[in-house]
């Protein structure tokens, strides 16, 4: 094997797959601790209520815990530097008032989950209903109820930006306005959330297994809540079956289980079930974009004027607060386009809904949906092909690095070439609609700041500060390598890609490398896996650690070969001196087992190192892509069939192209879910209406066409190997591409859809509106 076959750029099979495919993974639900009990929760059945009392039968009182039992647990409060951002941290257990359906009111402990649920049923809570704020419109209603008695409104955060657009507006011949809605949705990782905690006397430590993306973050939060030293809590994320952001927040259940494990001295476990996930778990989004584009006669967009309203729910999650959607979306709303004027106002309101979590790509699918549907509307207004209008507006490759009007620096890439490639691929596979169906194709292009930078976060001031990223590397006596990292791999295939990076630097086979991850007891600190950051940050740190190991190996070899270290090269896993060659394992074995062959002052600190990474100038790589969807619409029923999907992306160097394909494919299918199917609706009393998979529609294989991929590789000038993140990108463009395709299909009917998911009801609604308009027009002309 050569490095080319195992290092950066090789599509080797995923090393973690065997255990997952054969059911040998070890998830929270697989872990048994002797004496362990299960926890079930009494949750609020009402969206807004005062808790008058909770009656607990005497004979079970020692197994039931309410807010009063956790009075010594400190509130873990998120923070924000955004001026006048009002945030309220969720108490782990509601004490006097519940603010969403599913909020925890009591915890019950029993040997099994079923028995714990029996205990829940024995409790008799008495709630007094309060008026419900069930929607953003409710929240903004002048005379409606307030969620917090001491607030003068239900507005939690307002932000704005104005580059100065009045002159542009005055001169622009074309003005296009659209209101675009993105629904609230659940995140639905294959494995739900889970936590298991017990006190380990010998280690003087609370051991917390959590299905999390960010073990160190959770440790920090639990230390605050329980007033323990950081050394006294070990958070272990075992195998984690998908996160998507849902597991990058602190969950109340984590605090409760940890606190009760301490209080009772018993190992305790809670496993989220689907009902809890869909009704009480944090969910995502619900944005309204009021977009006005000003353009010239050719559709060259001169300025965007936008207003964004987001549903900021009842409480702010730790560490992200409830402001991330508005902050991120408003910071990237001009997308991959060269737009000279931009004004935006955002408003985040509070409602009686469960917590809001960042979800794969966070606000980017919403921002992309807003700008890309607006771009299509501009093209329609000037009578040009939307793809051609895009080509005129995209940032040109010669402008790179390009400073966007929002202040972001797009580092590298050829956006127009990417879109042209997608257009070619669409042209290569023409589709034919069934009789009576309408055919349409839609495009969406995005650029994505991957590996979120320190300044991005420090500027908004949330208590999660990415910066230095580290990896520990230990070379064993036989030349095999152990890497320990603070990020957590829950579908990204890092056990493979990080081994490939080590293989690239050291020339050893990936089979001789193991990645240990997701355990605060093993690894250097990390803020965790999120924001498409691991391959950039941890990949950079792993390479740096391996560089250090390489120097040490060359030093050992130089002594053994009696030459200068500078004259020893490490190539393809061999240490080559002027007159001799030796294997890495020989050098490692000599240091461990034959110190007498080495002088005393050589490598006293051994073959274990920590390598770090932090980008120069705090610069982040921008990955980008062009997507194209082709749909067939049944104009009588409003049903949409996806016939073809094309995604052309550029994430710089692909460490493992097969894994990149997997990330893009999975992301696209999630994005198709956002675009066509997924929705968590609430009624006017704040009751969740999609409580099982019978009502919450996820895309499946039957709804997914063969997704056709292509890639270009424009190396980032700022990262090791030129990599850019790719974990989220696939999910960004599909809602926009799908809706643009539907609108292309609906064009002969004069109908236009401005909301996702594009359910049959919404599609038919757009058609009905067009019919009503036509009818009204006819009557006026009469």
């Amino acid at each position: 094997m050569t490095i080319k076959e195992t290092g950066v750029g090789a599509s080797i099979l995923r090393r973690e797959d065997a255990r997952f495919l054969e059911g040998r993974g070890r998830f929270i639900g697989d872990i048994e601790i002797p004496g362990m009990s299960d926890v079930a929760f009494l949750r609020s059945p009402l969206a807004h209520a005062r808790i008058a009392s909770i009656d607990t039968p005497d004979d079970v009182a020692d197994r039931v815990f309410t807010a009063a039992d956790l009075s010594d647990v400190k509130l873990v409060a998120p923070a924000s530097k955004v001026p006048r951002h009002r945030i309220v941290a969720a108490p782990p257990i509601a004490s006097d008032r519940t603010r969403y359906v599913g909020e925890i009111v009591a915890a019950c402990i029993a040997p099994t989950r079923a028995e714990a649920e029996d205990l829940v049923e024995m409790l008799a809570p008495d709630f007094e209903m309060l008026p419900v704020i069930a929607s953003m419109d409710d929240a903004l209603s002048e005379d409606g109820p307030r969620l917090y008695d001491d607030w003068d409104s239900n507005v939690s955060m307002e932000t704005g930006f104005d580059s100065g657009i009045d002159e542009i507006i005055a001169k622009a011949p074309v003005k296009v306005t659209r209101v675009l809605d993105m629904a609230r949705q659940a995140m639905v990782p294959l494995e739900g959330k889970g936590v298991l905690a017990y006190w380990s006397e010998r280690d003087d430590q609370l051991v917390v297994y959590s299905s999390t993306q960010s073990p160190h973050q959770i440790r920090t939060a639990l230390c605050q809540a329980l007033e323990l030293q950081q050394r006294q809590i070990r958070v272990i994320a075992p195998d984690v079956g998908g996160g998507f952001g849902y597991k990058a927040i602190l969950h109340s259940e984590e605090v409760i289980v940890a606190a009760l494990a301490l209080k009772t001295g018993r190992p305790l476990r809670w496993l989220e079930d689907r009902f809890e996930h869909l009704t009480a778990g944090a969910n995502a989004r619900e944005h309204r974009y009021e977009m006005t584009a000003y353009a010239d006669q050719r559709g060259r967009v001169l300025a965007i004027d936008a207003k964004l309203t987001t549903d900021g729910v009842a409480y702010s999650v730790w560490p992200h607060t409830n402001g991330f959607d508005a902050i991120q979306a408003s910071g990237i709303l001009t997308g991959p386009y060269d737009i000279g004027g931009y004004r935006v106002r955002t408003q985040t309101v509070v409602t009686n809904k469960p917590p809001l979590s960042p979800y794969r790509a966070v606000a980017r699918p919403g921002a992309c949906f807003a700008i890309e549907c607006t771009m299509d509307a501009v093209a329609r207004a000037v009578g040009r092909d939307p793809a051609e209008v895009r080509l005129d507006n995209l940032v040109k490759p010669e402008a790179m690095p390009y400073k966007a009007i929002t202040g972001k620096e797009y580092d590298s890439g050829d956006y127009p070439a990417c879109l042209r490639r997608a257009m070619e691929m669409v042209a290569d596979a023409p589709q034919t609609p069934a009789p009576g169906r309408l055919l349409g194709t839609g495009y969406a292009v995005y650029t994505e700041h991957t590996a979120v930078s320190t300044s991005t976060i420090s500027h908004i001031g949330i208590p999660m500060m990415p910066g230095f990223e580290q990896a520990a590397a230990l070379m064993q006596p036989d030349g095999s390598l152990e890497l320990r990292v603070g990020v957590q791999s829950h579908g990204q295939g890092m056990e493979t890609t990080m081994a490939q990076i080590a293989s690239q630097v050291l020339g050893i086979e990936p089979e001789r490398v193991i990645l240990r991850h997701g355990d605060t007891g093993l690894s250097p600190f990390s803020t965790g896996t999120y924001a498409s950051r691991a391959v950039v940050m941890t990949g950079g740190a792993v390479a740096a650690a391996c560089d250090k190991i390489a120097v040490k190996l060359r030093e050992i070899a130089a002594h053994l070969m009696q030459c200068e270290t500078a004259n020893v090269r490490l190539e393809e896993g061999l240490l080559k001196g002027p007159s001799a060659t030796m294997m890495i394992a020989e050098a490692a074995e000599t240091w461990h087992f034959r110190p007498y062959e080495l002088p005393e002052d050589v490598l006293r600190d051994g073959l274990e190192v920590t390598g770090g990474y932090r980008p120069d100038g705090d610069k982040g790589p921008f990955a980008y892509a062009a997507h194209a969807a082709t749909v067939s619409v049944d104009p009588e029923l409003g049903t949409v069939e996806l016939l073809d999907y094309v995604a052309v992306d550029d994430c710089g160097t692909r460490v493992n192209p097969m894994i990149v394909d997997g990330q893009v494919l999975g992301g696209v299918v999630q994005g198709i879910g956002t675009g066509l199917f997924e929705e968590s609706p609430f009624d006017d009393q704040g009751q969740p209406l999609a409580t099982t998979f019978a009502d919450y529609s996820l895309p499946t294989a039957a709804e997914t066409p063969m997704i056709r991929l292509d890639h270009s590789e424009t190396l980032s000038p700022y990262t090791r190997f030129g990599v850019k993140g790719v974990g989220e990108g696939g999910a960004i463009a599909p809602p926009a591409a799908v809706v643009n395709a539907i609108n292309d299909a609906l064009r002969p009917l004069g109908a236009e859809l401005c909301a996702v998911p594009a359910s049959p009801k919404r599609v038919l609604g757009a058609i009905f509106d067009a019919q009503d308009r036509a009818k009204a027009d006819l009557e006026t002309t009469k």
Partner: protein
Amino acid sequence: MKAPALEFHRPDTVQAALAILAEGDGAARVLAGGQSLVPMLNLRVAFAETLVDIGAIQELAAIEDAGNHVRLGASVSHARIEDGQTGDYFGGMLGHVAGNIAYRAIRNRGTIGGSLAHADPAADWPVAMIALGANVEIAGSNGSRKLPVDEFMVDVFTTALQEDEILTAICIPKASPKLRWSFQKMRKKAGAFGEAIAAAVHDPESGLCRVVAGSSAIGGPQRFTLLETALQDGDVDDDAIRDAVTRTIGSLGRYETQIHTVCLRRAIEEVRT
């Protein structure tokens, strides 16, 4: 989402099952494929002190060619019907209906009797069985009885079944080779319950002519006798169907009216051409 403790029985005769049901005094439930009842028990929205699993009763799994009709035991799975084990007396209609219920994993366990007895308003079998003029056989401690499916389906999640009775079989009168049928199911995605279902059936030889629709929105299966004449005699346009929908069901929202009208029209058109 775990059911409370309950007693579980798996008798091997209908008589034994009836005895347990009678003993249960209203707190015993029959378990067939469990594809609806088990999740409902787990969600604690359905309750049972005793479950009587009829899966081990061989005669309930029988498929019988009984002269002028086909007799399906109540615990015949959707998958067996999808795979054609019933014989084809209905121009492929049974296989088509079965094969579009939920997903194969559910069809492997879910049963036609369970579906009828559960009476989910959005279920497929009640619509299809009413369209084909099927009857159900019911066994009780006081003997057995037979009912047309449209009388068996009483309301949303409500049938004519008494607490101490078991649905034992479905008898479908054989159609002639001239049977024409259409089963239109509009759904959000493969595997989902229908938002609107419409079936039209016409057998000029036997005289069977039925138009049936079903969905949660319209509260379960409904015969559209107004359209049955039209199916045989003449043209029907959207306005006539929309009118029939309103007259049969009452006023619905614009979306619901539209999808039921379109499904009914497509069903009728497919049968007529």
